[in-house]
């Protein structure tokens, strides 16, 4: 094993500035979309009094839970003492901070009164999980910055593991809190399920890792830094486990709902008659985000190809966005069960007349705002890796530390040798 050396990302300036230019343009367009929605009001969006949270929330929640998931890699290295993951810790921390920033920006800029953010920061109702999340998010940012310091600065070395442990628990709390935003809502049938909290945790593992792998592979390939099979194999296998975890929770969620007769209509609608939401569930969440990536990851030939692994990661991200769309928007579109055993014949406010779901189609500014958040995250990451030493010079098989399993097999003496 050689000493891991970290270096700034040194791709040719023209290429770097080109990339930065593209990202900055997307951020700019996102900012214009925000300005338009803020100036006109939300009537220009697809959101309504029936579907109150729309596409910006799909992006925001996806980015926030991915942020927490991206930090997983650093935790595996520090807290669970897996030496192979240690060289990836810095990028993991940077991505976590960047994704959280992107997600929070989208969330905040979609508020009806974004200029009152200071009210949200100074006036709290501690019965609200939303208020708790404000602390969880800002605390996460502070902890990640401290974590990065402990990884990069020699003076921080002794604090690395304690900070890592705090970060691990904090990130679990953060994702649990995000899942609970939905899980605690007793009003809507599709929410009102405590399982949403752990489901969000597992989803964060999968989506965060997929984003991490894509960024890692892109950065290394662009600059021609070596990335060995060992590390890729470990990461893609880990991704496979996380995807299976998401499947498990999805299955249990639906089984839990199906068990109560009052939810039969909901599950039937979601899985069979929900139109776009049924499509998003089966094609997006299950097929694109789950089965196809699993097929690639465990395929004897394809799983060895970097491009296919990258494709699997991309599909997990697309599937993740689809799953957020189903969870956030589909659950609102399904009519609230205010009058069990009765059919709504007419309503002055879209109460699910004849069981019809609420309409929602994303407006362009909503999508642009969401993409702006993604671009913010990538922009922060691009600038970070360029100016500071986040990326290891090489992840080639012979450079990386030996697997901890081998250390155990060979014993401490063998490891030293």
């Amino acid at each position, binding site marked *: 094993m050689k000493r891991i050396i970290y270096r700034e990302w040194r791709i040719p300036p023209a290429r770097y500035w080109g990339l930065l230019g593209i990202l900055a343009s997307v951020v700019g367009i996102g900012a214009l979309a925000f300005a338009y929605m803020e100036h*006109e*009001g*939300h*009537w220009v969006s*697809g*959101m*309504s*009094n*029936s579907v*109150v*949270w729309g596409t910006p929330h799909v992006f925001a929640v996806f980015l926030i839970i991915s942020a927490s998931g991206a930090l997983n890699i650093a935790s595996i290295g520090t807290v669970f003492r897996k030496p192979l993951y240690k060289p990836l810790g810095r990028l993991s921390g940077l991505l976590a901070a960047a994704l959280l920033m992107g997600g929070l920006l989208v969330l905040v800029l979609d*508020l*009806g*009164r*974004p200029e*009152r*953010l200071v*009210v*949200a920061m100074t*006036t*709290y*109702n501690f*019965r*609200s*999980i*939303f*208020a708790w999340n*404000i602390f969880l998010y800002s605390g996460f940012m502070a902890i990640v910055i401290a974590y990065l310091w402990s990884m990069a600065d020699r003076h921080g070395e002794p604090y690395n593991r304690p900070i890592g442990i705090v970060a691990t628990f904090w990130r679990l709390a953060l994702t649990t809190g995000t899942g609970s*935003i939905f899980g*605690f*809502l*007793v*009003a*809507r049938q599709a929410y009102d399920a405590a399982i949403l909290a752990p489901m969000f945790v597992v989803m964060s593992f999968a989506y965060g890792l997929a984003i991490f792998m894509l960024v890692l592979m892109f950065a290394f390939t662009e600059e021609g830094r070596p990335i060995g099979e060992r590390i890729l194999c470990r990461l893609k296998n880990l991704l496979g486990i996380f995807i299976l975890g998401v499947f498990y929770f999805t299955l249990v969620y639906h089984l839990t709902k199906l068990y109560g007769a009052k939810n039969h209509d909901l599950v039937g609608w979601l899985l069979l008659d929900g139109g776009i939401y049924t499509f998003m569930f089966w094609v997006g969440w299950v097929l694109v985000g789950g089965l196809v990536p699993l097929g690639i990851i465990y395929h004897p030939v394809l799983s060895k190809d970097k491009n296919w692994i990258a494709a699997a990661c991309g599909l997990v991200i697309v599937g993740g966005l689809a799953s957020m769309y189903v969870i956030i928007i589909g659950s*609102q579109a399904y009519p*609230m069960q*205010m*009058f069990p*055993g*009765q*059919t*709504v*014949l*007419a*309503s*002055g*406010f*879209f*109460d699910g007349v004849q069981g019809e779901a*609420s*309409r929602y189609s994303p407006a362009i500014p909503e999508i642009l705002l969401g993409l702006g958040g993604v671009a913010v995250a990538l922009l922060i990451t691009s600038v970070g890796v360029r100016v500071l030493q986040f990326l290891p010079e090489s992840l080639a098989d012979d450079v990386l530390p030996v697997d901890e399993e081998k250390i155990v097999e060979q014993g401490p003496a063998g490891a030293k040798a």
Partner: protein
Amino acid sequence: MKDHHEPTDRPADAGPADSGRRAFMGVAAGVAGAVVAPGVVLHSVAAAPRSEAVTGDVRWGLLIDTAKCADGCSACVEACDRENGLNLQNKPEGASQEHWDDQKAVWIRKVKLQDNQTGRVTNLPMMCQHCENPPCVDVCPTGASFKRADGIVMVDRHTCIGCRYCMMACPYKARSFIHKVMEDQLTRVPRGKGCVESCNLCVHRRDFGEESTACVDACREAGHEAIVFGDLKDPESAIRKQLAETASRQIREDLSLNTGVRYSGI
């Protein structure tokens, strides 16, 4: 012991030098007093009913007799719109009517139901149910969604950040988000783009000691008398007497929210 308030270090010549200033101050205070005093007096007279703090001695509520609620009548909805300035909302140029209908603020709506088993048809108005344990208040991050001591659940428009979490949490779909810039509104019901709002039991009437709500008056004038307003805590109030005589229900009783709006005949 020495008194701390005793002016021990006053300059000897302070008196003569200050006399001119004192005279000026006296005149200025007199003039200012003469100008401001009538305003203060008038203001305090006008504000008398509102200056009393809301107490928990009362709990305002509604009882809706669905048997009396007429099919096709929307008097309560129209009256609410007029009372709260919701009739001043205009569809933005370029918006589709269908989408706008789902975006404009609605504080009270008529719902027509049919029992799946028996085919019995019921009409009723739906609005904020003014829960004793309101989910919208629980989830509001800033505490803008709040319950008054007299049971009225409403939104403080100064601290609402427009996150819409309360709308996600309300089991009655009672809340509306203001989707566009306000062009016209009533002084008694200030409204603003980007905030959430809902029925507040005509809170401005409560504050001036009036005895009814716009929907109740309209329903009575239309000859139906399907809605009764009153103090749920007062054993002598009409609403309490009627509740004691007739069977009534809360919508979504399973949530144990103890709503201030009750329905009979469903």
